[in-house]
Structure formats: structure tokens, C-alpha cells
């Protein structure tokens, strides 16, 4: 597959995530949009990893492991995302406990 397709796909997903962050007020949905962004990155990384692998193969290196690091990076992203989710949801729940809402627009005590 041409790598451009993957780039565009990832960018599309990434920007949809950004749009989600920008258009929603529900903290959970915003957070989900961010997860979507991370997934777009993951997809791109994997695609690049395969691209580099392909390039190494084409260069004649049959036993190459080029591209492994890209996939491992995805693994680490997932790790971090998992950790982030646990903390993030904890924070959202904490806030919900206090104001009984997940609306980020409620969060405007701190300004100016």
C-alpha cells in the first residue's frame, strides 16, 4: 500500500480527534477523542515501521528487523495511554463527585 494512504488516514483520524476535543464539552468524550488521536499515531507508526521494513528488504537485507522499533514504540504508547486513562478517569470521577457534572465549561473558576 502506498504510504501516503496511511499518512492521510492517520492524519484524518488524528484531526477528527482534535475536532472532537474542540467541539465537545463532556470531559470523557474529550478524553476519548484524545485516545483516538493516540490511535491514529499508533496506526501511522505501524505503517511507517512496515514501510521501513519494506525499504530495508528492497535494499537487499533479507534478515532485517528494521521497523521493529516503530512497533515497540506503539507498545509503549499503549502502556502510557493505559496509565493516563487510569489517572484521567480518576480525576474525572473526582470532579464528578464534587460538582456532579463532567462538563468542562463548568471549570472556569480559574481564569484571567
Amino acid at each position, binding site marked *: 500500500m502506498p*504510504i501516503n494512504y496511511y499518512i492521510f488516514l492517520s492524519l484524518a483520524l488524528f484531526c477528527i480527534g482534535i475536532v472532537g476535543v474542540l*467541539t465537545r464539552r463532556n470531559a470523557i468524550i474529550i478524553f476519548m477523542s484524545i485516545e*483516538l488521536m493516540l490511535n491514529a499515531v499508533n496506526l501511522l507508526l505501524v505503517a*511507517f515501521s*512496515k*514501510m521501513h521494513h*519494506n525499504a530495508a528488504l528492497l535494499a537487499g537485507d533479507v534478515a532485517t528487523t528494521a521497523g521493529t522499533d516503530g512497533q515497540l514504540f506503539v*507498545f509503549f504508547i499503549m502502556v502510557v495511554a*493505559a*496509565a493516563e486513562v487510569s489517572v484521567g478517569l480518576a480525576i474525572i470521577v473526582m470532579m464528578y463527585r464534587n460538582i456532579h457534572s463532567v462538563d468542562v465549561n463548568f471549570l472556569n473558576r480559574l481564569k484571567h
Partner: protein
Amino acid sequence: MSITQILFWFLSIVAIFSALMVVSSKNPVHSVLWLILTFFSISGHYILLNAQFLAIVNIIVYAGAIMVLFLFVIMLMNLNKETEPQKHKWLRIAGAIAGGSLLLVMVAALKDTDIKHQQALINTGGIGLIKNLGKELFTTYVVPFEISSVLFLSAMVGAVVIGKKE
């Protein structure tokens, strides 16, 4: 058009459509479900790219664990269409335009890169297999791997600090 190409297009369309549904659904529960669909289609892409380990992990960790956690929280808070806060129309439009123009700009910038003729290897290639990844992870990447334990520890401590009743 080969089957892989058909699959690619299909998965891509599903991914984008469900992603759009994630951000546009009024009901948060629906959003979660659409997001899970997105993740599945991305996992499908992984399989297509022969990144089997990541495809599995993606389904287990993201679709399985993370999204269930989301779902739990949403259920816990009893969020639904009625309680869903709505942004002001103009702000939503502004957000969409900003995000859209970011996409436009980036696509325009990246459409002519020097790697645009390169191909991503589909179906074949062994780097995405558990064996290879595991070997790398526990040799070259062992230090980051250990470090990520610190991350988890801190997340754990954090969750306790935040979640514990006083």
C-alpha cells in the same frame, strides 16, 4: 483491486466513519461504542500490516480494558443524551473549522514528501510477530520497559491518592 486493497479501503472508511460518529454522537454511550468500532478497524489495519501482536494488544488493552473502563465510568455517572452538555453552535463550527484546516494544511504539506512513493509492506514481514518484538523488548528496550514500570507505579499511586476517600 486486490482483496487487501478492498480491505484497506473498507477498514479505512469504517475507521473514519466511526471516528466521526464518536465525536458527533449525542449520547456518550454511543460514542464509546463507536470508538470501540474504530479501534477494531484499526486493529484490522494492524492485521493487514501483519502486526499481529499489536492487533491483539490493541483489542485487549484498548477495546477491552480501556473502553470498558470508559463505559463503566459513563454508566456510573449515568450520562446520557439528556445530560450531555452541548457547546455553543459557533464554537462547534469554529472547532470543526480549526481541526479541518489543520488537516488540510498537514495533508497539503505532506502530500509531496520524499517517501510518497514508498510502500508499506502488506501481509508479509515478520517484525510484527510476538517473537521478534519480545526479543527486542527484553534486550534493546529493556530499560524503557523497566522505566514504564515507574510510570505505572506513579499512575497507581496517583489513582490511589485521587480515588481514596478522606
